[in-house]
């Protein structure tokens, strides 16, 4: 059967349950409250359900399936022991309202994660509450907003973002009520300090920027940029989407930032699950710490009976910041994701720098290998770097503009051609500042052999004629999907025939 709603077996199929503690007849809901018709859900036995979802899983591509060089998304391997750990009852069966003495182990892990992120980022205080990168951005900008309100600097109504920024940056700042000022990048894809100087003034609240930037290039002028913003009294915000490139090498704190978010699901390998869950902690310098959403975890020596339950002679408790913006998620954030990322970080410990070195090594090697393979195949005139740079960081951009001009082959065509070679396609058409952009991020968990083979296959795709590429992919479960049709003929759920 091709979809779930075609299953309609015997009543009550699927999942047998123990008897209720009282008969159903003891519930006498009045007419105004009682449901008249049950949802028209399918009826499946367990074997049918298992086969349906297994069949669908085989029509889906994950890191486990093959190379997933999706730029900006840091699709690294997800170690399986992390999934085992997340199922331990000491996290899976924990309620966020349990008292501190029930969750000392959980709080100890939270505290260790706060500390680890603080030392890696050069920030003074981290909160783990935001559940996604975009929510981290929103939370940090809210903290800065309240900081300025308390100081009476309500004229600061603007947030500056480069035109190469992730879409979430302007969206998050706008949700806080700020006006967005977009500044153009330089020709080489880097921040234009003159453009920044031209817009930075006493109305500037925050500048949001990622470094390495979305082209995978390190912004060497970042200290100068921070100084420009600080000179007018604004705050610097670091988008941590690209943090994977710099652990143990530099930090947002050293670059002059005041606040940062982390995409734990990228840097620390929470599986992305086809779109989530994520985890988006933020870190701030001390002047912003009392504005963070609470509660935070603090530790102290145990007192009295506490010593029996203390973890490594420390007692962990919740702390409510004095000027807290309140909550951005009702509970304690994505605790289960934080636990997985704790397990991931422990694998590297003080060696996290090696992780970043290999992420950068792999990205540069792949960039080199692609150009080399293209040259050997005689198609190097069809592809060029998205931005001139001797070295990239953890990702790099390519421009298929020459192929477009010469043969009408777009970045999307190349992407679809790569699907036919058994790869996930790189990110296409982002950042917007590179024409026919393809953004490639191999991550540190891919072998040299995989990178070499991908480079050769990439060059092979460049050799394919335009007509064939326009028709790609042909080996996938479905061929090119008509997104315009989907938008014009909205079908957002299964409709039953009797409707």
């Amino acid at each position, binding site marked *: 059967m091709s979809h779930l709603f075609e299953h309609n077996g015997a009543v009550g199929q699927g999942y047998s349950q123990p008897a209720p503690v009282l008969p159903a007849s003891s519930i006498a809901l009045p007419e105004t409250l009682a449901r008249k018709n049950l949802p028209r859900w399918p009826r499946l036995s367990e074997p049918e359900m298992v086969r349906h979802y297994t069949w669908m899983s085989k029509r889906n591509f994950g890191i486990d399936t093959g190379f997933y060089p999706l730029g900006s998304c840091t699709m690294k391997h997800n170690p399986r022991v992390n999934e085992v750990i997340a199922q331990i009852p000491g996290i899976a069966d924990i309620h966020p309202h349990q008292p501190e003495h029930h969750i000392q182990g959980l709080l100890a892990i939270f505290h260790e994660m706060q500390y680890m992120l603080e030392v890696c980022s050069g920030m003074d205080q981290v909160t783990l509450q935001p559940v996604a990168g975009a929510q981290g951005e929103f939370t940090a900008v809210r903290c800065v907003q309240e900081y300025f309100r308390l100081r009476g600097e309500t004229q600061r109504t603007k947030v500056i973002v480069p035109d190469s920024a992730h*879409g979430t940056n302007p969206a998050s700042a706008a949700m806080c009520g700020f006006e967005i000022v977009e500044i153009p990048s330089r020709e080489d894809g880097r921040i234009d300090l003159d453009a920044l100087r031209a817009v930075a003034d006493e109305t500037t609240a925050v500048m949001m920027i990622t470094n390495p930037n979305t082209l995978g290039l390190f912004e060497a002028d970042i200290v100068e940029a921070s100084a420009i913003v600080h000179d007018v009294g604004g705050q610097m915000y670091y988008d941590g989407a690209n943090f994977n490139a710099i652990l143990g090498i530099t930090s947002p704190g050293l670059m002059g930032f005041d606040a940062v978010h982390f995409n734990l699901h990228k840097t620390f390998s929470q599986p992305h699950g086809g779109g989530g869950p994520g985890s988006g902690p933020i870190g701030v310098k001390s002047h912003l710490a009392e504005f963070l959403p609470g509660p935070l975890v603090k530790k102290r020596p145990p007192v009295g009976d506490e010593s029996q339950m203390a973890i490594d002679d420390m007692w962990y408790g919740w702390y409510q910041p004095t000027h807290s913006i309140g909550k951005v998620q009702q509970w304690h954030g994505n605790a289960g994701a934080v636990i997985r990322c704790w397990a991931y970080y422990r*694998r590297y410990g003080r060696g996290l720098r090696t992780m970043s070195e290999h992420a950068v090594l792999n990205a540069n090697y792949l960039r080199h290998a692609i150009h080399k393979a293209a040259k050997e195949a005689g198609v190097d005139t069809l592809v060029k770097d998205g931005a001139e740079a001797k070295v990239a960081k953890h990702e790099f951009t390519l421009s298929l503009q020459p192929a477009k001009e010469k043969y009408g082959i777009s970045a999307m065509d190349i992407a679809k051609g790569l699907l036919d070679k058994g790869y996930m396609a790189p990110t296409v058409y982002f950042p917007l500042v590179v024409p026919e952009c393809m953004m490639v991020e191999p991550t540190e968990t891919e072998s040299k052999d995989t990178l070499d083979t991908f480079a050769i296959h990439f060059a092979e795709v460049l050799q394919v004629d335009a007509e064939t590429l326009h028709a790609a992919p042909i080996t996938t479960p479905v061929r090119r999907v008509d997104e315009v049709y989907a938008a014009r003929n909205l079908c957002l759920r299964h409709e039953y025939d009797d409707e």
Partner: protein
Amino acid sequence: MVDQLPNLGREAEMLAAMGMSSIEDLFEDIPAEVRMTGDLPLPPPQSEEEILADARRLLGANVAMGERVSFLGAGLYRNYVPASVFQLVTRGEFLTAYTPYQPEVSQGMLQAMWEFQTLISELVGLPVANLSLYDGSTAAAEALTCAVRVHNRKATEKDTVYVSELTPPDRLSVMHNYCQGAEINIKFLRHHADGTLDLESVSEAAGSCGIYIEQPNPLGILDGGISQLKDIIGEHTALIVAVQPVSLGLVEAPGQYGADIVVGEGQPLGSPVTGGGPIYGIFACTKAYLRLMPGRIVGRSIDVDGKVAYCLTLSTREQHIRRHRATSNICTNETLIALMGAMHMALLGPEGLHTLAVRNMTACLLAKQKLGEIENIVLPHANNHHFNEFVIELPGSSEECLAHLDTLGIIGGFDLSAWYPERKNWLLVTFTDQTSEKQIELFAAHLAVWASSRLVTA
């Protein structure tokens, strides 16, 4: 870390191919003034075995609800997630995929989410559902801002929404954070002493952009008056209803009594409590809200051969296209947890959902009978129907009672003074499909002993 890095030991070879001699060459673009010096002050790397052992030690020091007898709920509910859900959801093709930007190789997750949209749509009685927000609180907050976007033009009380005064402060705090940027005023709907909504107060909200209530409400009450709300507020004010999804196996679907937006904590369908996350927020609405709603949506389409195919649609609402004009900043959501929800719903079927709701509601009903018999304990809202939970008023503080029960291995419920500071003696006690008759009897017996001891000392 060795087992995570396939190119350890091959650095020189790879660098040489690029004409480089050292890893340092790759970082020459990072100025010295921002370089970190020395090692990170962190412990040495660990092996998988060591990490697992330490995780078991630390997490084993926690008190899992299942090790005790637990009556704690207040928004999250202990449940049973069928084994097949965990087995299937950890298949790498689902687990390790990104957002389905390339639909040709993401048909499995796209179809599963289209099916999820259908399951939620049927459950709540509204035509449109997205594929999850972060949790119930962010879904509620986004519903408020969505209601203002849709209704502000015609509203007579502009930039204003009304929410139930019983809304838990942590949820309300999320609403305030999401609403303040758009300068939305949040006003309150009053409740009667018996816990039901004051319909007079609802009529004052007619003309605003929307009202937010919960069914069951935060005190576990199923409020019959809710079926009249849409008639009171009229078509230009959104009726937003938050639900405990399992209750909908017995309780009327909000779409049937005029809800415009339905939100809720999806957790009881498909997900363990997990410390409060990752869980998933439900968001469903009528077609009038479709183009201004937050979150990702899957549509059914065709491929170039005319074959049925699925893809993300209506993306022009979203941040990666619309940037600062997007309906929400959400990008990463809770897809995998929503997938667990879909699998649980698929297994339950309509009658299974009904049975699950009956198990939850009868556990609560039996507890109401047993606890109601205890001398010196009062059920202030006893005349209502309850789902999962109800309030008991104690002859002493909830704090003391919970501490006493804790020594007996019982997690006795939620101290409502955390929500309503003047209610020092109110305890919210919760019963789910995982509560047995024996546990209820044990709870009643211990509460009776404690209550009578208070009577003597009083």
